[in-house]
């Protein structure tokens, strides 16, 4: 067996947070979008039941919707999807979903418009505590009082196929496209040129496996709640559910009814 590339700890994240996320998150997702999407089709049970519990006719936001795998789960609700990756948004659109390219730190929606929101495997790609808080603050802004937000992030304590050095929390996590896998760029005109891998490939894909690295902040138990309880969000959001599922920590947040919008 060939050795599988393992996550690489990052000692110090560059303080140019936006640039760091552009090169180690946004560009990588554009490069791996078709292959990544082909591996993302099965809804996680906690997310599915959260969606099924929404009232018929509810309106939700899926912030960081990826390939849109949660947008059509409950046909009785309407979900507007957004993602920073043009490649993934393009795939969602082709599946018939209402989607747009947007940044979690500055969402284009009106205050209090949504009955619920999803943030599934998104804010662990942000490189600083303040940016993770800001991402949740933006989602809280667009949800109505009483509306719920489901947030999933990767757990440092996970015991799956990847092993993380428990003394670190920031990692470059490899994404491997096996050899001979077609991965046509979803946005050929906008996808940046790969720095770590040659994007030029035929129909069968390159003869060698292609390895890309995405930045992740791995969350310790209770750290996700601390984004709310240790920040200005404490006054506007309550934690109404929490748990561990599929290598992730999750919380269900509820916007308090007595607060005004940011």
């Amino acid at each position, binding site marked *: 067996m060939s050795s599988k590339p393992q996550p690489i700890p990052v000692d110090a994240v560059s303080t140019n947070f936006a640039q760091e996320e552009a090169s180690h998150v946004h560009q990588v997702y554009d490069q791996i979008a078709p292959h990544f999407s082909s591996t993302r089709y099965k809804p996680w049970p906690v997310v599915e039941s959260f969606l099924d519990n929404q009232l018929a006719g509810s309106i939700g936001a899926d912030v960081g919707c990826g390939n849109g795998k949660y947008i059509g789960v409950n046909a009785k609700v309407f979900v507007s999807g957004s993602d920073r990756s043009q490649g993934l948004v393009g795939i969602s659109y082709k599946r018939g979903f209402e989607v747009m*390219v947007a940044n979690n730190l500055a969402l284009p929606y009106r205050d209090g418009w949504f009955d619920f929101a999803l943030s599934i495997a998104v804010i662990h790609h942000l490189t600083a505590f303040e940016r993770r808080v800001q991402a949740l603050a933006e989602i809280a802004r667009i949800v109505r009082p009483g509306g719920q937000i489901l947030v999933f992030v990767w757990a440092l304590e996970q015991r799956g196929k990847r092993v993380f050095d428990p003394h670190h929390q920031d990692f470059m996590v490899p994404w491997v496209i096996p050899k001979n896998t077609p991965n046509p760029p979803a946005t050929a005109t906008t996808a940046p040129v790969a720095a770590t891998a040659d994007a030029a490939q035929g129909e069968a894909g390159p003869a060698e496996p292609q390895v890309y690295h995405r930045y992740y902040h791995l969350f310790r138990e209770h750290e996700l709640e601390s984004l709310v309880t240790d920040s200005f969000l404490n006054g506007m959001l309550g934690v109404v559910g929490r748990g561990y599922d599929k290598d992730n920590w999750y919380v269900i947040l509820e916007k308090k009814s007595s607060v005004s919008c940011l």
Partner: protein
Amino acid sequence: MLQCHVKGCNDPSLSFPLQLKDVELEQVETEQNDDLLANLLQKIDWNALQMTATELGLASLPETIPDDPDSDEAFMIKLHEVLMEMNITQGKMECRGCGHVYPIKDGIPNMLLAEHEI
């Protein structure tokens, strides 16, 4: 649903609704969801919707919401068409306040801002 979110562009009378320009439309039939339409009616700024629909040449919506919209079948069908079935395939959305332009290409709006605008 969408508004301008450029930092400092916070005059609510101008940052919403965004003005649609150079628009190409297509109609895609979808199943009508009356629960969803009733919920949208609670949330929508009717004047903004009416103005936008008129600008797009969709002059089928009344100036005010009927008294009992849920039981007005013809109204609900029109509302469903305008809100859920009309897709903008090409065009742009322009903020009436700061002039920021959000392009729509191949059905996908690009709502990204430059880092200094956030």
